[in-house]
């Protein structure tokens, strides 16, 4: 979002900084015997926005997003994610729009004018992808929502809290792979819970390739 600022004044103290910077260290951590049970992928430079449908305009929003994203508006508790794009249910009449970069959502307010309120959240949430054979066991320690495949599977989303920190989570695939968005100012506290919970399984932290 702040490209112009960095190119103009590279020596400025005010530099863009990743949400996980100074919080998460890449590499292998926790129990060292055997392969890591958890893989944590730190997401950066994604595009994220909240969409709130105007009263009685959900059908119009649905049509505009189908045209713009090629994704349909998810039902209650659902997420439609394809690659790095997606729409995730958040509350009645409210969704998160996800894109590979903040630029990917730049025209959204114009496209949805009069249909939905769009608020950029690209810099206000920290995003981490959780995968690996022990991913569900890890989340079971903090999430009071049943994540068992018969209750929660790919394409499902929930808003809840982990360690008293508000989170929005959705499942990408049956691996299982989850993604968790947390308010950026809580990234440090959330990470403390995450690394503590993941330690027994052994975990690998990597920066996102995207």
């Amino acid at each position, binding site marked *: 979002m702040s490209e112009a600022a960095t190119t103009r004044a590279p020596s400025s103290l005010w530099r863009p900084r990743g949400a996980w910077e100074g919080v998460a260290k890449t590499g292998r951590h926790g129990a060292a015997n055997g392969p890591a049970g958890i893989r944590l992928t730190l997401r950066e430079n994604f595009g994220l926005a909240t969409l709130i449908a105007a009263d009685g305009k959900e059908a119009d929003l649905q049509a505009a997003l189908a045209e713009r994203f090629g994704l349909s508006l998810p039902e*209650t508790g659902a997420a439609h994610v394809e690659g790095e794009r997606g729409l995730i249910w958040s509350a009645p009449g409210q969704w998160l729009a996800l894109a590979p970069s903040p630029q990917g959502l730049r025209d959204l307010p114009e496209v949805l004018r009069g249909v939905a309120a769009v608020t950029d959240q690209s810099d206000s949430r920290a995003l981490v992808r959780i995968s690996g054979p022990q991913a569900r066991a890890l989340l079971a320690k903090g999430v009071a929502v049943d994540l068992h495949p018969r209750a929660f599977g790919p394409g499902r989303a929930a*808003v809840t809290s982990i360690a008293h920190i508000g989170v929005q989570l959705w499942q990408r695939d049956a691996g299982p792979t989850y993604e968790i968005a947390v308010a950026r100012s809580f990234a440090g506290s959330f990470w403390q819970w995450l690394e503590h919970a993941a330690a027994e399984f052994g975990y690998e932290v990597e920066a996102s390739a995207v």
Partner: protein
Amino acid sequence: MRIRCPYCGERDNGEFSYLGDAAPQRPDGLEASAQAMHDYVYLRDNPAGTIRELWYHAAGCRSWLVVTRDTRTHAIEAVEPARDVARARRSGEAA
């Protein structure tokens, strides 16, 4: 105690915050007598039994809910979105 949110499913009550009795309706401030305002602001029933009350799903879908609960057992009979209750009340008034 767990509350079955109509949007999120069954959640721990720690995700919700409590407001109180869902019954009182604010009188028209310009028309109402002092007594009616006093009743609205201060007076509440305290039933041993079923009560309809407002809960807010703060850590979930941020929806206001009307929960019908038995104060003696905490058994929850019904959970409705508060906006549906308000709309039904309004359309009842209009009819």
